């Protein structure tokens, strides 16, 4: 798929950098094809094809680091960029941790991230899936007269990595997604609902009809919603909302933030940071995982890391540099694209499944069941949490009326220690996911 000269050129440029004064250099070439169609009212609104090829080159000289990225593969341009970058690198501060990986043992097991069936899908196939999803949405309920759109797409990406010590390593990964956003209308009120499925393998993708149906359920559930009075009550985050919350919490586990005192978990290794029902895992090796990869963006092997084990903080997540600074093995969390430096990021990051989901609602006398979170609100430095939410009000163990225009707030440390229930509904439709979780008590900020 990549233009062959680019693969050769990426290596040539790296060697050129080494000859021009870089003691170590690393080349990361990303080549991908993305196709997406968007359908609305049965008509194609958008057909998009993106063929991307970009090179990121890190150079190290006397423990100083410089970086360049480009999509321009003309050899003269590349050589000039290398020279400019090397001279800029002289301005950087030497740091002991500026060192590239010296070996890489790539997993010999098939991690199942490449499905040839995904690469073979044509735009007509994507249109067909989107059409079934939209038709099933319209068929559900007469209050669904329109959709914002239905999107179906595929990406095939190939990574080529090499550095001064590690010869070229490569892998190919596929992704397919289908997402529907119907709009429900009733008495002048319009509310949308979105349901997205995303998988590595085509055979794992939910049927289009199911996706349309789930999205409609979400849109309808929001009709007639309004605020509730402010209260301190038990709050349940449904699985998708809990996943969004976990994504917001991720920076607290980044070793760089811990080292620089920008994480509420700094100095908490070995301590209880969540209730014993909570286990949090980052697993870059999970078969068919959306965050699975054979090696990370700087040539470190991926791992399964138990970050929080039954409430106790066991590990932070590392790039090569932070692992060196804290004298621990890297965890394979140096995540990047060709145009960015490796940053500590999640692979497949999740709260492990608990026992029962339905029980979590039934046990609540009066509280809030949150199905949607919006905007920013997780402050992993100060530990404050406050976010716009919508969902359903719980009375005597049952969902009653729809709620929107309210906030939930708390202190993250107290919230995590106060999780008193974890559901069994863990579903990997994203690379950061959670089952339904219940917080013993949060502040709901409502209307007057």
């Amino acid at each position, binding site marked *: 798929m990549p*233009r062959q000269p680019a693969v050769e050129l990426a290596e040539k440029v790296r060697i050129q950098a080494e000859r021009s004064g870089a003691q170590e250099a690393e080349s990361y070439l990303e080549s991908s094809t993305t196709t997406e169609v968007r359908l*609305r009212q049965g*008509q194609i*609104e*958008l*057909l*998009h*094809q*993106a*063929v*991307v*090829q*970009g090179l990121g080159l890190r150079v190290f000289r006397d423990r100083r*680091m*410089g*970086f*360049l*990225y*480009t*999509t*321009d593969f003309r050899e003269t341009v590349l050589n000039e960029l290398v020279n400019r*970058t090397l001279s800029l690198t002289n*301005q*950087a*501060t030497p740091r002991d941790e500026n060192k590239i990986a010296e070996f890489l043992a790539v997993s010999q097991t098939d991690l199942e991230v490449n499905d040839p069936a995904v690469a073979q899908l044509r*735009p007509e196939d994507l249109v067909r899936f989107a059409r079934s999803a939209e038709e099933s949405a319209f068929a559900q309920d007469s209050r669904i007269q*329109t959709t*914002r759109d239905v999107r179906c797409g595929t990406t095939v990406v190939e990574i080529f990595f090499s550095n001064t010590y590690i010869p070229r390593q490569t892998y190919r990964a596929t992704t397919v997604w289908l997402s529907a956003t119907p709009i429900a209308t009733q008495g002048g009120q*319009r*509310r*949308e609902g979105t349901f997205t499925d995303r998988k590595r393998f085509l055979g794992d993708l939910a049927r289009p009809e199911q996706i349309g149906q789930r999205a409609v359920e979400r849109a309808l559930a*929001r009709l007639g919603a309004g605020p509730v009075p*402010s209260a301190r009550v038990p709050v349940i985050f449904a699985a998708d909302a809990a996943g969004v919350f976990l994504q917001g919490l991720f920076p607290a586990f980044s070793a760089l933030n811990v080292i*620089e*005192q*920008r994480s509420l978990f700094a100095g908490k290794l070995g301590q209880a940071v969540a209730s014993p029902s909570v286990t949090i895992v980052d697993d870059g090796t999970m078969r068919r995982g959306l965050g699975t990869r054979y090696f990370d963006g700087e040539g470190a092997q991926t791992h399964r890391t138990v970050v929080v084990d039954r409430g106790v903080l066991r590990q932070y997540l590392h790039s090569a540099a932070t692992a060196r600074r804290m004298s621990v093995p890297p965890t394979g969390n140096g995540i990047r694209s060709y*145009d960015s*430096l490796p940053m500590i990021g999640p692979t497949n990051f999740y709260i492990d499944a608990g026992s029962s989901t339905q029980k979590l609602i039934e046990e609540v006398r009066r509280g809030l069941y949150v199905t949607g979170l*919006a*905007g*920013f*609100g997780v*402050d992993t*430095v*100060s*530990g*404050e949490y*406050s*976010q*716009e939410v*919508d969902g359903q009000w719980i009375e005597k163990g049952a969902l009653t009326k729809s709620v929107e*225009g*309210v*906030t939930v*707030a708390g202190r993250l440390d107290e919230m995590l220690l106060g999780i008193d229930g974890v559901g069994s509904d863990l579903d990997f439709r994203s690379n950061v996911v959670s089952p339904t979780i219940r917080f013993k008590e949060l*502040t709901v*900020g*409502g*209307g*007057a």
Partner: protein
Amino acid sequence: MGIGQELRDVLNEETVNRILQEALARGGDFADVFAEQRFRTAIVLDAGKIDSVTYGYPRGAGVRVFRRNQTGYAFSDELVFSSIMDAARVASSVVETQGRKNPIDVTRRNHAPPFTLVNPEPLMIEASKLDVLQRMDAAARAADPRIVSVRIEYVDEVRDVLIGTSDGVYVIDRQYLTSVSCVPAAQSGGKRGSGLATLGGRVEADYFTRVSPEDAARRAGLQAARLLDAGPAPAGAMPVVVAPGWGGVLIHESLGHGLEGDGVRRGSSLLSGLAGTRVASPLLSVVDDGRWPNGRGSSTVDDEGTPTQRTVAVDAGVLSSYLLDKQNAALLGLRSTGNGRRMSYRNWPIPRMTNTYIDKGTSDPVSLLSGITKGFYASELGGGSVETTSGNFNFAVREGYWIENGKLTRPVRGAVLVGNSLETMQRIEGIGNDLRVDTTRGTCGKDGQSVPVGVGQPTVRFSSITVGGPSI
């Protein structure tokens, strides 16, 4: 070398005509080609050390075809005529009608820039950029003994664009942008807080001599320290006063996105069909100005080659104009307002805000606090979001104060504020005469595309907004 010369070498008027001809070979109402070349420098200073230095040099070209509401888009990372022709063929495949035979003839247009940068900041030598960062680091640390870390990020870029359209436009533009952010973290007795200062915009090289980077860094340091001592924010609906400047993120989220032509045309925006009607308090006027001096959202032309303009979107409470790109304007029977923007050549243009602000009112800002027995003052906002179908929006407050009996009293830590656009905009009770437009920090994300924007407002008072703190 002249502006856009490398782009012109591949895409002159004649080759652009051929590409557009190819793009419309299967029919379609409109086609454009957009070529771009950026040179980007990024420097990160962390823990007092220059952590990394980056040069980025992305370039490529994309071709779009649309017929009514149908769009085809494809691009090439390779700035080569044959690859761009391939992109034109892929983009054209969305349309399946009879071929168009009219020849295309683009003509070079020159439009007056909103402001001219004689010696733009990104062209400064690297050593003076590093010097600014080191000075900021020292100033932030000196602000308070409880500052434990400082991270400063500097990014600048020079962006050349070349746009050719089937309605005859051929235009070349060069755009400069600089951004600096400084994030000090403070720690004391198990409590942590972070501050934020941002600098930059489309600015001259002498910007850092006119605006003191040390002052900005010191303010961020003081904010981080102040947040250690701040109490919890209140919860519930109450009178809210929002500080001027970056507070304009409020109007950006609450009304701005709903004014964008794509949602309006699809009927999915809550402002669809409301042109000419009252949508807000008569005190409120909202302006989107793509020509605001040094604004992050400013340019000579938008990314479809339309000259930018100052658009009064809400005039004394009445919705007077949507924010439009070419395609949605055509579908609505209107003209583009110069709001067709895109993140890069890899993306098709969509209607976006430029620099959006609440126009100045007549009230003395201090008087806006009087008469409030218990309320919330949002002194510095963070980011926000909106769902344009319902109009439900939120924005984070980084720092606030209690208002008690008409005066600012205790500082409080952040909280999110939430509301519904139309309800909240009816609740405006007063607008100050102290308009400020921020040119340093706005980045707006929509549909996977991030673009730089400006936001602004004077001091604004609302009779009631729901505050999402933990304290009842």
